[in-house]
């Protein structure tokens, strides 16, 4: 038995020595491999957004690796956070403690992102958030590792409140999920709506997975608002719209970035989605600086699922991380230092400018309305031209 073990040990040593030698040879010929991690919801109710974001990040890596002038070959490590804070903490701890991963592009869901920022900071892993919009992610602390290309939800709510006032709406009911994200949405919706002199008849917060909204909707029907404001993500938003119709509530639905994307319309169908307005921190892909290149490349790559609203941001964040690594080399501290100086860096979503909190301050909040099963920029819609009318305008 002992001799057998010795022999096996010797064999193992020989094999590993050989593979080391081969690996060394290999490396001499090819570019150095650099691992970066991408995190988002790939399963669960929000997965459509996650899959679109993942495809876009993969596409960015593919395009980068195809360029012969780059110094490194990039490998994207993809992880699923299920849009759950506890799962997010697990997977981020995993990548943060893996020293071979030098940077990350994490999170669609704000509630997940706010739970993991401390981990990125503690392990000194630089990251660029691709989609979450809660202000506190970048502004609650001044962590040098934390950056974000997507906007923050304050702007959406400011533009939204102004827009609704211009249309003549006065009476609102607010409906949000009870996560940090929903609470923040409520806070800024309330602030800007009251500042505009409008009235909030009632405020409702429910768990994001609550199925039965009948008690809340009955109360809302009694309050009879002109507008129902929704601060939450696609699944709850779809449930709200469906059940509003079942209860015969004919209020105008005002959403924001949480329901932006094809998934919302697919979930409830074009008839129910018609006329829903939303405020989102980006012009449509076709109007982005690199929009056409992105759409063509995405199509050519043959993905079955659409990039969804934040796909271009995922692409831009991933590209930004790789461009920084090209300059600084694959070292966490150096990448963090490199990301501190992002000023007017061109990207497909427009120039990226990080402020002293790592927040991109140049997103362009755009107003959208659903028309015939598609999100259309307000100015281009038949609603703006007066051909169609929003609901319930007093």
């Amino acid at each position, binding site marked *: 038995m002992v001799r057998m073990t010795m022999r096996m040990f010797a064999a193992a040593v020989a094999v590993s020595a050989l593979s080391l030698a081969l690996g060394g040879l290999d490396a001499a010929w090819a570019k150095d491999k650099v691992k970066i991690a991408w995190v988002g919801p790939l*399963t*669960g*109710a929000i*997965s459509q957004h996650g899959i679109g974001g993942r495809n876009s990040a993969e596409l960015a890596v593919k395009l980068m690796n195809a360029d012969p002038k780059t110094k490194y070959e990039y490998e994207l490590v993809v992880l699923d956070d*299920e849009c759950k804070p506890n799962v997010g903490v697990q997977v981020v701890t995993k990548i943060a403690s893996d020293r071979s991963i030098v940077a990350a592009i994490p999170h669609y869901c704000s509630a997940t992102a706010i739970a993991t920022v401390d981990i990125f900071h503690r392990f000194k892993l630089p990251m660029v958030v691709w989609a979450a919009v809660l202000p506190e992610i970048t502004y609650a602390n001044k962590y040098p590792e934390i950056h974000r290309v997507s906007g923050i939800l304050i702007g959406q709510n400011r533009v939204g409140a102004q827009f609704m006032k211009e249309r003549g709406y006065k009476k609102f009911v607010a409906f949000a999920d*009870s996560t940090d994200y929903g609470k923040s949405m409520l806070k800024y919706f309330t602030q800007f709506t009251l500042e505009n002199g409008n009235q909030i008849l*009632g*405020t*409702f*917060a*429910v*768990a994001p997975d609550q*199925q*039965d909204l*009948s*008690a*809340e909707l*009955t*109360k809302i*029907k*009694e309050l009879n608002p002109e507008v129902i404001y929704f601060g939450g993500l696609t*699944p709850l938003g779809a*449930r709200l719209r*469906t*059940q509003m*119709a*079942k*209860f*015969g509530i004919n209020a105008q639905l005002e959403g924001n970035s949480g329901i932006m994307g094809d998934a919302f319309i697919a*979930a409830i169908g074009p008839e129910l989605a018609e006329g829903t307005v939303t405020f989102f921190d980006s012009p449509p892909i076709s109007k982005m600086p690199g929009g056409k290149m992105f759409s063509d490349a995405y199509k050519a790559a043959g993905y079955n699922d659409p990039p969804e609203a934040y796909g271009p941001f995922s692409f831009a964040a991933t590209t930004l991380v790789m461009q920084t690594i090209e300059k600084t080399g694959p070292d966490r501290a150096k990448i963090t230092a490199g990301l501190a100086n992002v000023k007017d860096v061109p990207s497909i979503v427009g120039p990226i400018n990080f402020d002293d909190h790592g927040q991109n301050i140049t997103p362009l909040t755009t107003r959208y309305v659903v028309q015939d099963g598609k999100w259309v920029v307000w100015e281009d819609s038949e609603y703006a031209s007066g051909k169609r009318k929003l609901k319930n305008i007093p």
Partner: protein
Amino acid sequence: MGMIGQHLLNGMMQGTIYGLVAMGFTIFFGVMNVIKFSHGDVLTVGAFAGLVAIWIATSLGLPISIQFIAAFVAAMLVSALVGAGIAHFLIMPLRNSPPLNMLLMTMMVGTVLREVIRLFFPNGTNPQRFPELLPVGGFNIGSTFLRYDALILIVAGIVSIAVVYWIINRTRFGLAMRAVAEDVETARTMGINFASIIPLTFALGSITAGFGGTIYGLYYSEINYSMGLLLAVIGFTAAIVGGLGNIWGAIIGGYLFAGLQTMVVAAVPSMSDYKDVFAFVLIIVLITWRPTGLLAERGSERV
């Protein structure tokens, strides 16, 4: 409070689903002294079976009425089989083990069922859209908006409760069930086939779960792999509050719980996120006040 009728109707709908789940718990406990925690997941399995049946019926181009019937038949059949299977292969062999082991075992079975759906059903982690087979819309009586689908489902739920009650109290099978519940040994000496009555009892309890699951899918137009979890906790609570082992208790408990949830939102809308907390706290108070439930189990009226 002009919407009191509306809240009442909402509460009725939820209460019917809770009552159907609670009835299963009470049947299992009444006959076997078993708390079967996988009951909610059997409901989920039933709902998914109903969904698959609708998909098949749709692809065959069958009319909506047939799809509707197919959904209920498939849900009830599959949940009955799963329920009877759990009884035959797990509960019967373990019936003399400590009650705690049995409780744990049924919880594990529930987890297995849940994970099987999550992992093996196509896109099982995502919520599944349940087709709307019932007429949409409704009509107003005063300020109360009566949804056609809600009315149909409430009536269906109440009829199914009545049918189960009739089976237990008016059929030979029900008599045998009650005999086993009363005294296993005596029932056996009277020639009752114990080994077949138990799985059949579990099949009956599980049919109500499958029925409830399909009602749930039709009403909310959405089902997901973990929907049974909270329903099981609420259904079990309802059964306890009503008096475990008493059918009427389970039904009253179901409506009571739904009533409490609805009341919170109606009275203090801003507290709607806390409605489960509030309802469970009141239930704790109730249980402290009446530990054996509102309708205590009477010796002669088990099940």
